């Protein structure tokens, strides 16, 4: 059932995100062309490109919030929450799809920036640089490990980011009126509680190793800390959806 939920979530969100990414790439290509050939108009297109970057960032967050609110806490919740699917599956489907769109946003922005600054002859320069970087096998393995850790951290951070909004909305929408207002209040309340809790738990870590090993150790501590914050918000969200659901 989780895969089916994910499929439908991609279908619902993809119809907005994919065209947006395509417009971003097209704007980058247009800005590239215009800066090389059209003088002042190029500046205008670069400005539009910057606005598009901003729009992509804002829309992906708004969509994540809106999908949760409308699909589970709004009228659509009458259908979604009576599917033969558990609350946990709903939450994981929403989190995983949002994480994928956040990752896609990063890739689309990188691709767009590359498109913007691309000049003829760049390919030869990249190929020359790649052949002349002195990369040893050990360095490559370290780089792979670091990339993997960054990937895990990215996924955990995305999920925790979504869960902070989900928990606030799940709590806020359990009230009969002023649901949005309560949600905003809970968002700041949970945020403040998390800050206080993490500052209380601050402790000095003595690293046993040095150099890159220390970096890996620090990465896993950050991942564990972020996951713990996410887990608390997950439990709050699941509890409110199971025990205090109050559809309009």
């Amino acid at each position: 059932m989780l895969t089916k939920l994910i499929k439908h979530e991609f279908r619902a969100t993809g119809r907005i995100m994919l065209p947006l990414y395509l417009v971003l790439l097209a704007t980058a290509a247009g800005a590239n062309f215009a800066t090389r050939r059209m003088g002042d108009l190029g500046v205008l297109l670069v400005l539009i490109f910057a606005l598009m970057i901003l729009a992509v960032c804002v829309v992906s967050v708004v969509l994540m919030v809106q999908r949760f609110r409308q699909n589970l806490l709004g009228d659509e919740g009458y259908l979604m929450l009576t599917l033969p699917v558990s609350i946990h599956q709903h939450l994981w489907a929403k989190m995983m799809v949002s994480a994928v769109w956040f990752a896609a946003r990063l890739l689309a922005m990188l691709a767009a920036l590359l498109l913007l600054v691309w000049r003829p002859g760049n390919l030869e320069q990249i190929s020359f640089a790649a052949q002349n970087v002195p990369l040893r096998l050990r360095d490559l393995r370290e780089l792979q490990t670091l990339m993997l850790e960054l990937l895990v951290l990215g996924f955990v951070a995305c999920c925790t980011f979504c869960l902070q909004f989900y928990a606030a909305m799940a709590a806020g929408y359990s009230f009969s009126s002023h649901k949005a207002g309560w949600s905003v209040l809970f968002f700041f309340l949970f945020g403040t509680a998390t800050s206080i809790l993490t500052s209380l738990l601050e402790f000095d870590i003595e690293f046993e190793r040095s150099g890159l090993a220390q970096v890996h150790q620090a990465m896993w501590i950050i991942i564990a800390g972020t996951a713990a914050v996410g887990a608390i918000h997950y439990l709050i969200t699941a509890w409110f959806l199971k025990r205090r659901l109050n559809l309009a």
Partner: protein
Amino acid sequence: MPVLECTGLGKKYGRVNALEGLDLSIEPGRIVGLLGPNGSGKTTLIKLACGLLTPSAGQIRVCGQAPGPKACAQLSYLPERMAVQSWMTAGQLLDFYQDFYADFRRDAAQQMLADLGLDPKKKIQQMSKGSREKVQLILVMSRAAKLYLLDEPIGGVDPATRDYILSTIIGNYNPEAAVLISTHLIADVEKILDEAVFLKEGRVLLHSEVDALREEKGMSVDELFREVFRC
């Protein structure tokens, strides 16, 4: 085994009792009218059966299961609001139901869409209010569920469609399934009901066979309702 069983069921909203000590049992093969004035607890009872609310007291079981994913697989619920995603087409909604419900009968749904002249390629948001409600009802009635919970199924449709819906409910008759219809339009549904449940202030005021009720009281269910709940 009853398809719906409530024992000492209670639900409080703050200090207000929406349901209190409700005992009710619905056997398979029955079409039951859940009747009562506004605020009598009809929608609350249906929401509790679907797991959209948690009881404050007592318990409720659907086909022997506590509300949850397993119970939801056995029941087909029509909410009083439009709950389908409006950006989807009717055809995409059939795909959606087919994905999640093993008992969904796509051919029956397609036939009903054709009968009512609804275009499967049209988006829900482009349809009229009545057409949207028809699509939602078609999806719900196209499942081979054990319990159908219909909250105001004929409230927003024209009299001709109303007749079609009622004939669909009868045509869908399955000796293993029960239909619970919550409505204010008693005169319209009375002819298809086997049993009537009168709810008043969260309690069962009356639960009886419709034929026995007519014989005993010498009036229709609609007339009895007007007499019992006279303001």
